[in-house]
């Protein structure tokens, strides 16, 4: 075999190898994409479920871009929402409140088409949101709390079995004991995680009725990445 032939053969091998590697990479990418896509689809399905969320939750989620970098999660209760982040003092949270309150007066970024119709219809409610720092008895910590008169964030009384019927079994179930400064009974939370933990349906053992969703936790970055 001449040098030229050897070089040509090597080139063909290199091309073949490169093609194989590309194929493998593409296959891997294709293999990874369904879970991401499934996760996004599940997030979309959950966040557009009007049987779960009231209009104030949709309005709040539409403003998620403003919360990014400021809080890591939002917790939705039936009549209010709060930051998952805990602050040791009111003063340490006030700065964030001021920044958020200012930002919320501006129009949020454009939503993805899938969310546009449902979420945009609720945006007028944002003007009535009151964001303030409140001390929460559950953990004796300060949180940013979003209230609106007659607020409807999470539909009350949803049963966990309803969530399972709609979205399947949670990917992960964990327990969190919320300790306060004092020694009263702590809230023991059962966190049912979906979409890689981006959304958690939470039961509390302090809830008046067993088996109901006490709150929903949404991870700000993960959800913002899906809705904008």
């Amino acid at each position, binding site marked *: 075999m001449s040098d030229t032939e050897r070089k040509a053969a090597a080139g063909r091998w290199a091309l073949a190898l490169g093609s194989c590697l590309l194929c493998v990479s593409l296959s891997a990418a294709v293999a990874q994409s369904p879970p991401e896509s499934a996760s996004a689809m599940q997030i979309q399905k959950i966040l557009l479920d009007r049987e779960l969320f009231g209009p104030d939750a949709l309005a709040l989620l539409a403003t998620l871009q403003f919360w990014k970098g400021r809080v890591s999660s939002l917790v939705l209760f039936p009549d209010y929402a709060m930051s998952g982040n805990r602050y040791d003092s009111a003063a340490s949270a006030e700065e964030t409140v001021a920044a958020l309150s200012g930002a919320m007066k501006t129009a949020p970024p454009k939503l993805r088409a899938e969310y546009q119709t449902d979420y945009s219809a609720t945006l007028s409610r944002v003007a009535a949101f009151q964001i303030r720092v409140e001390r929460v008895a559950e953990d004796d910590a300060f949180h940013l709390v979003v209230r609106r008169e007659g607020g409807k964030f999470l539909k009350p009384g949803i049963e966990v079995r309803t969530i399972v019927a709609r979205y399947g079994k949670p990917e992960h179930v964990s*327990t969190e004991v919320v300790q306060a400064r004092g*020694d009263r009974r*702590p809230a023991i939370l059962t966190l049912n995680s979906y979409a890689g933990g981006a959304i958690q349906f939470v039961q509390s053992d*302090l809830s*008046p009725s067993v088996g109901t969703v006490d709150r929903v936790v949404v991870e700000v970055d993960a959800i913002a990445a899906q809705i904008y």
Partner: protein
Amino acid sequence: MELSPHLPGRGLRAACVMVACLAACGCGRLHQKDIATDALDPNNLSDTEPSIAVNPKDPRDIAIVTFSENWSATSSAPVWKSSDRGETWRKVAQIAQPSPVLFGPSDQKIDYDEDGKLYVAELGQGGSGITDFVFRQTGAPDGPLTPGAGYGNDQPHLSVDRGHSSPRRGQLYSPWLDFSQPRERSTVAWSSNQGVAMNSVGAGDNSSFPDRTTRIAICPDGKAYIVYKAREGTTGAPAGFENVHFRVNRSDDGGATWGGLGAAGVSVHGAPQVATYMTLTFGNPAKGKVARARSSDAWIACDPRNGDVYVAHVSRDSSTLAQLYVARSSDQGATWTSVRITNGTHNSAYPEIAVTGRGVVGVLYIDYDDSGAATLFRHHFTRSFDRGASWNDDETLQSMDPGPIGNAASGFLWGDYEGLTAVRNAFYGVYTGESSGRAVLQLDPIFFRQKSCGFWWFHCWLERD
């Protein structure tokens, strides 16, 4: 009278018959029972932080509260009840939501008055507020209990004066911890009208250090005693411990003032500090679930015969382990003698102490053994038949690995305290332990009862409990 040379004496024969009868009927034997069943506890709740009371008029009536079903706008929280000394149990929903904004029960303690009326101290929390209430029996024993005035804050306890010679029989006391002050203060609310009106009075000394763990006992003469700890920092204390003084103070006027033993009270272990738990990780976090122990280190009781006061408390001593000590005062709290009741081999905490009608002293406590792959938590019950001088009667009630127990939440396994009381010659207790006979392995309230007489106390054995 001459005795027959062939037959034992009449007294000896009677004693033999009595011993045989006692052995046959199981007197003095420890009775234990998981009071929950699949029917009574269909939601498999964890039933933590139990408290027990026995009706002094009829000790067949026993009441227990645990963190079971919560109250709501339409349903009441339950009291576990037995009318046959704890053989069978039922759940009676009789603690209604005291206010629409408060959820609970969050912290509770139960007691009977001398007339057999039931009282329950309850903490409700909601939004940013915490309020305590004493619920009282105003109708039939199983009817709805009636809440009194709101008061207090963290960890309300409860004791009703049942002393026959007390000038304030029926007076009700509820210690709680005042978190509204820069340094938390042990506080006691008193009521002369069954909790309808509550009057809170600062009882611990918080002038230099914050207080915690306030427990109360009422002696037969109507004098009220609290034990509380002054939290004096962590200098030199190992992780999870802090330096404290366990102090006792006394009220001689129905709770109006707490200066019977000076402004700060008297340390039951003398001048030196002791180290006690202040941790969320009682146990070995590397080997399984752990428990909170921040106010799980002291209890107080009064001898109903002579007014001796007993305090059980934690002290990490030269064994380098947390041990339990019992201190006794025979002079209304002025001076104390102390003895270690655990054997220096395992970390121990969560003491509850009670004294029977004949002065037998009992302590319920928990230790843990982490020598194996998983931490085993062991509930113990130990007794002293000589006024707390010696403790040679330790019995393990249950050894539990909470790891496989689904509703055992690491960080709050059985609660901050459990239940022990004594009526006449028997101890009655309840702890949150591993279930038995349930479809799902879980935490349940485990009741125990033990008649406690020295073997030579024939009258004691013959008395009905």
